[in-house]
């Protein structure tokens, strides 16, 4: 009597194909559909390793809340992610900069924070109150709380750069220097430089609130910037390109993030604040309209206002903390770097990026386009 094997090639193929489908099925139905209590879906910045290795473990140890961290490279991508998450869910909290809050809010993405669940007194003066406080509120509700802040200023080669005396944004447009820029920041720098030297028909800030003024002012800035374009050797859009612009492509001055200057501090490059005032950014947390883990989000925002949390958060970005008492807990390297660039005068002159509406961003991109194509 012959026994026939039940496993032949054909039935194997059939069953495995069905099996593979069955195995894949649970992946299609999210296991997170029923929200658990001890976790938080957080979307933040990519490229800062400390978050996974130091910051979030410390937060989990302190509160028992597990952070599911999704890293994205820039705010535009975060905005896209937020728009998708508005339909699909899965995101509770995102970390944009303060100038985007208006645009995000007008897109219906934001929910209000509950100040009673936070510790608003923890923040350093000027970061969550005053002008920044006004920008954080929409229709009386708190839409944004700070997490850290930093600057965009002149990174320069200590040997060959000619910054002027005192150092000025004009160095970026001087034929004496070879520069690395990102187009839209460069146009803003040109505008502020022209403004400071009295060459604009009206204040540069008008352009951020009035689109008619924007066209008038940016036309002037564009024309001047195109004249000075010959000394631009590299565009940058992220940390790597900026770094390579200096080290491999010979740029001597650039309008770059503080982190670029920090990373190059041992290679003969310095970081200086121009007399017009450094560009400054203000980063913080927003709560998604359809957030599931609302209390956990408040816990994280509150933790980042404590001395320990604020210091860790700022150290991870090599930037500045928002909480009182955090400065003492920062890494000495980062503190020294900042104090070397910003004395009280430079701090008082910081120029915070104003709010930029969706319409403004579209128009700004058009100007950046013309600048690049010229």
């Amino acid at each position, binding site marked *: 009597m012959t026994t026939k094997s039940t496993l032949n090639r*054909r039935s194997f193929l059939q069953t495995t194909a069905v099996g593979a489908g069955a195995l894949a099925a649970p992946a299609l139905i999210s296991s997170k559909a029923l929200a658990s209590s001890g976790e938080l879906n957080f979307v933040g910045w990519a490229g800062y390793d400390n978050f996974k290795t130091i910051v979030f473990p410390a937060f989990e140890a302190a509160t028992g809340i597990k952070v599911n961290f999704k890293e994205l490279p820039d705010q535009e991508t975060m*905005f896209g992610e937020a728009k998708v998450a508005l339909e699909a869910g899965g995101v509770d909290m995102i970390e944009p900069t303060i100038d985007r809050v208006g645009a995000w809010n007008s897109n219906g993405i934001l929910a209000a924070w509950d100040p009673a669940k936070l510790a608003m007194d923890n923040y350093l003066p000027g970061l969550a109150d005053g002008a920044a406080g006004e920008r954080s509120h929409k229709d009386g509700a708190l839409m944004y709380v700070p997490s850290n802040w930093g600057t965009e200023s002149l990174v320069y080669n200590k040997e060959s750069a000619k910054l002027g005396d005192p150092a000025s944004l004009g160095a970026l447009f001087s034929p004496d220097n070879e520069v690395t820029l990102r187009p839209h920041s460069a146009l803003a720098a040109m505008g502020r430089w022209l403004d400071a030297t009295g060459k604009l028909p009206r204040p540069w800030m008008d352009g951020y609130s009035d689109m008619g003024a924007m066209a008038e002012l940016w036309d002037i800035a564009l024309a001047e910037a195109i004249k000075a374009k010959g000394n631009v050797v590299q565009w940058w859009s992220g940390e790597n390109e900026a770094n390579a612009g200096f080290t491999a492509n010979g740029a001597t001055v650039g309008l770059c993030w503080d982190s670029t200057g920090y990373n190059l501090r041992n290679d003969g490059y310095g970081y200086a604040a121009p007399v017009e005032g450094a560009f400054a950014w203000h980063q913080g947390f927003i709560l998604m309209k359809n957030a599931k883990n609302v209390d956990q989000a408040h816990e994280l925002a509150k933790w980042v206002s404590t001395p320990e949390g604020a210091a860790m958060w700022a150290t991870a970005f090599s930037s500045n903390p928002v909480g009182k008492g955090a400065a003492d807990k920062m890494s000495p390297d980062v503190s020294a770097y900042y104090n070397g660039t910003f004395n009280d005068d430079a701090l008082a002159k910081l120029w915070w990026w104003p709010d930029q509406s969706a319409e403004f961003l579209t128009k700004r991109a058009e100007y950046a386009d013309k600048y690049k194509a010229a």
Partner: protein
Amino acid sequence: MGDMFRRYGKSATFIICLITAFWLLMLVILPNVTLLESSFRPLLPVTEIGGPNDQYTFANYLKVFNGSIDTTLMGIPVHIPVHVLTFTLTLFYSVVVTLLCFVLAYPLSYFMAKIISPKSLPTMFLLLFVPLWVSEVLRAFAWWIILALKGPLSSLLVWLHLIDQPIRWISGYNGVLIGLVYTYVLFMIFPVYNAMSSLDSNQIEAAEDLGSPWWRTHLRIVLPHCKPGIASGAVMVFMLSAGSLLVPTILGSTTSQWFTQTIQQWMFDALDWNTAAAYAFLLLLMCTLFVSLVMRLFRVKLADIAK
């Protein structure tokens, strides 16, 4: 189909078809239809989507004519919308890339198909394929390092006293051209080689016996025979170049701009996905038109290429 039933049985065939249909529908057709649909809608805040302002419009496509600048095109001063200029330059340089690829690929293919002994062919193929084992990003970035001011090329030439000062090789469209030719030349070599190896060598010998000089043999015998191969290589290289984002982004200079970069700017700088979608379809449409036109000009049919 009947053959598939015999081979895999009914249910497996069904599943294979289902997976293929899923792939086509969900990953190719639906995303493109969504893109096409959104390209006709205005950019609106999320709260206004579906509201009275959400009407179909051609406005996104017409944005390509906004914002004119003064420039010179091949020495002639023109007043032209900046995106039309970018588009024209993208098409022009893609044609240049295609021609350069052909110039490089033709002798090499002839060498592989007719001259080299079949024994060394596998080694030849291996040598050609090796670069493909490295990711395209890394290869483009490697070129960026080579061509940078303080890169090895400048250092070598200075060391050899051929130049006094390091040179910034990436200027204008140089870097983009080098990167694109390097990345896509294989897409020209293989179709041309394929066509050439199907040519009976006796024809070449006959031509030589009848006293034809080498250039006439190529012009009258080899080239016409390879036309379908050249056409399919040219179409591939051209479309890939015009649609490339990575190489122009990494190897672009401060004066070069590729149309795909403009699309990316609409997407990520202006956050206007609708206009980005419209621009993407413009690129697809115009490139398809251009390719069909050129194919008609050279009397090549789509069916010839498919062979």
